[in-house]
């Protein structure tokens, strides 16, 4: 059979059977090669969509991985609980001639009571029980690794954003002016509010078929994003139509 011979044939096709039944009935010799070419092409197309599917799957997986890694991080930091990350804190109010005091100790949860934590005991003998009754002991955990990592992540994202902001607002206009001269800069501001009825269709169709290389794609995506933000800025800050 023709289909078995083709290596690029997609593996799981439901109604393939029907096509297979049909095609021999109209197969003079000429349509053989035609059919082969068709199948090659279809195979290619199938590969392309397979890739698209795989990519999507990969993005999905990576997202779940991200989420999982966050969880793992938390769990790990819980496991690697260094001695600084647990404490038993006892607050003891003034008693007789002893002033109030706060005791802090790294101790496991089951030992978190006044007798284990208050050391040295300021009172003697029968007073210990009365003293300890007033103390309030609380066991607390934290994860200093989580805190550290979170703050570092946050600050690095903030730093990157600030750098990019400085680049966009200060450096890029200067570069552009030096490269293209002054006139183009002004022009590019005007063609944003393009409300031609067919402009959108152009956009939609162009997006679907652009087969440019990666660099162009990035450039294009950035340009599109900039236009979007500009449009947003107009509607929020200038025209006040949303979010006021």
């Amino acid at each position, binding site marked *: 059979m023709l289909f078995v011979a083709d290596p690029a044939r*997609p593996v799981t096709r*439901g*109604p393939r059977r*029907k*096509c297979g039944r049909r095609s021999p009935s*109209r197969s003079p010799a000429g349509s053989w090669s*035609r059919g082969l070419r*068709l199948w090659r*092409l279809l*195979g*290619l*197309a*199938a590969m*392309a*969509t397979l890739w*698209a*599917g795989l990519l999507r799957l990969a993005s999905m997986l990576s*997202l779940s991985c991200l*989420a999982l890694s*966050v*969880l793992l991080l938390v*769990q790990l930091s*819980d496991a690697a609980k260094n001695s600084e990350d647990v*404490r038993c804190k006892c*607050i*003891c*109010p003034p008693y007789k001639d002893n002033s109030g005091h*706060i005791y*802090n100790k790294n101790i496991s949860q089951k030992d978190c009571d006044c007798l284990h934590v208050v050391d040295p005991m300021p009172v003697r003998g029968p007073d210990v029980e009365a003293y300890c*009754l007033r103390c*309030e002991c609380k066991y*607390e*955990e*934290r994860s*200093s690794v*989580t*805190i*550290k990592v*979170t703050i570092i992540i*946050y600050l690095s*994202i903030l730093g990157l*954003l*600030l750098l990019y*902001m400085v680049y966009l*607002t200060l450096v890029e206009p200067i570069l552009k002016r030096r490269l293209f001269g002054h006139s183009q800069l002004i022009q590019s501001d005007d063609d944003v509010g393009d409300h031609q009825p*067919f402009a*959108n*269709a*152009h956009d*939609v*169709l162009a997006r679907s078929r652009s087969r440019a290389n990666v660099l162009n794609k990035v450039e294009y995506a950035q340009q599109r994003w900039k236009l*979007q933000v500009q449009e*947003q*800025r107009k509607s*929020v*800050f200038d025209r006040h*139509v*949303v*979010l*006021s």
Partner: protein
Amino acid sequence: MSRQPVAPEGGAMDHRGFHQGSFNSFQSSSSDEDLMDIPGTAMDFSMRDDVPPLDGEIEESRSYNGGGIGSSNRMMDFLEEPIPGVGTYDDFNTIDWVREKSRDRDRHREITNKSKESTWALIHSVSDAFSGWLLMLLIGLLSGSLAGLIDISAHWMTDLKEGICTLGIWFNHEHCCWNSNHVTFENRDKCPEWNSWSQLIISTNEGAFAYIVNYFMYVLWALLFAFLAVSLVKVFAPYACGSGIPEIKTILSGFIIRGYLGKWTLMIKTITLVLAVSSGLSLGKEGPLVHVACCCGNILCHCFNKYRKNEAKRREVLSAAAAAGVSVAFGAPIGGVLFSLEEVSYYFPLKTLWRSFFAALVAAFTLRSINPFGNSRLVLFYVEFHTPWHLFELVPFILLGIFGGLWGALFIRTNIAWCRKRKTTQLGKYPVVEVLVVTAITAILAFPNEYTRVSTSELISELFNDCGLLDSSKLCDYENRFNTSKAGELPDRPAGVGVYSAMWQLALTLILKIVITIFTFGMKIPSGLFIPSMAVGAIAGRLLGVGMEQLAYYHHDWAIFNSWCSQGADCITPGLYAMVGAAACLGGVTRMTVSLVVIMFELTGGLEYIVPLMAAAMTSKWVADALGREGIYDAHIRLNGYPFLEAKEEFAHKTLAMDVMKPRRNDPLLTVLTQDSMTVEDVETIISETTYSGFPVVVSRESQRLVGFVLRRDLIISIENARKKQDGVVSTSVIYFTEHSPPVPPYTPPTLKLRNILDLSPFTVTDLTPMEIVVDIFRKLGLRQCLVTHNGRLLGIITKKDVLKHIAQMANQDPDSILFN
């Protein structure tokens, strides 16, 4: 994954997803067979260059170049796979719930039928069914983690205004002193590891100069944070400003704001929210967290075919995401689900309820495992007390409810007036300056008062706290005159000096918060409303609570007290009053009732306080409703003119559909397309001369009998697509919406068949239908437009915008304030 084993061509087209239109399963199986009967097509196809062909090309090369293939309509339906872009919506448009839901049903039916055919299809159908829950899991994980990030960073940055930790720069004040052994009983929040700015700069902590240095640094940091926040918002994502709940409400009701729930909005909102909260402004993170969670939901929707392409299904996910957002904001999973149901959602089927529940659960669990506050709680102001309350105390609780209602009405009125001023006058031109000025005023006024200097969440947590013997705050500075032998239960005590001075400071804080919040909410930075409202209520409640406590202590022989509050008994808990006051104020502003009580009850974990909370929430809603009709979110929706059809209000006017429909009596006739006599040029002229977003299609202009409805966007995209890719379509080509196009005479341009974009089942009413029914249809079905007929002839059209305008007109409001449709 959209693998659909449909036909050999399926390989090329399956990434387009399901088939639009009305063909169903048994047709699809027959169309598979039809496909192979077109030898010329296959040839045509294979001779193209080696890029994988787009479905549009397949379609055209077939239906227009090849002759004599228009015989089977079912096949045509199949071949005319959607052109990219058809079936999507423009920015600032309203979706058609009916259309989206029927598309989803078609898709689902198809997958179910396919699942019997092969194992792969079965796996596909199972994964499709499961994807909703997987999505919820991911949303919960992501929004929980982001909430943790926001909590930890905001806490740290707030403390950065006062000083820095030498132990490690990433520790906030509390964690800096966490393990210190130098903390004394008297000065519990001081430790040598934590250095205030005066200590670092002039190496002393005492004296007037040190105070001035600290003051200066506090204001400086606040200004810096606010400036960074507003400029990041302005440069990267203007949609990240505000609370976001009014917009999310509108989006969930079917409006489209492109980019509002996008990646950049998510990132900028997360980052700037921390900055805004830490700058000490009178705002909270709860509302924006709902927006953040919804962004997570929307972004994660892109991973799943089922949700990526269907706007109605996506809105179900967003409802659940909103629940997850509140769940992490308050640590109240059930409250979050109810909040989504009561306040934000428009369409909330039972399935969404369960999914919201799951998402809220996962989100709360994630946040709990991050443990952002180090106290194993999800919120800073979690309290736990179980002292009973007496029936008489309902009187002060209701008083607090009245206060909350008054505050809510006052806040809504003044804030809307201020926002309107910002919208219409020169003020709106200077968003950065406005933020900086408000921040400067807030910081300068806040620093001298220790209750305004701390973050609002900490203030609330202190106000909610029930004073024990060991508490060192000024609010707990009571005189301990009782017999010390009995530990445990603490009776009412006379207030000490500290309490009296705290009362004064709290009163000043109350005034500051009330005034400054009005000007803060609505600025161009992420700003939530829950925390400031709760703070106002908590302060008022605490003041009243302490007053009641002292009254009961000094006058326990009064008739109202002597039955239940004898001397030496613990009868009044000021913390409870603070909590009830917070609930009342929040209820007055947002007009929530059920979800509010559940959130508050989850915050406290005490079942016995449900009745006080309910009484206060209900009273505050009554009072606020009597003074002003709508809650803050609805007021902002109306201010912005979003097309939001309120489901809660009744329409009670005796108007008819013909009073509302367009065209009006003296207007030109309704713009229609005919099904088989217009050329491409005619249609293009109509498109460029009008701005309508859809056109009815009729049999002929004379008969005006309705065929269907076609959307402007679909029409534009299809014509453009045909002109580009299809040979021979020129301006004089005739457009057919009919099932069969007549045979083309030789030497005339080929026809353009557009039946696949025609909605064959548009909703119609007769011209004498009462408007209450029409409004109900729009509300319950989520329609976008409805055609009006008279004796079967098309007469006019009613859009959602017309309905909204009519409602506004009937309520004596300016109907032109509704901007979009």
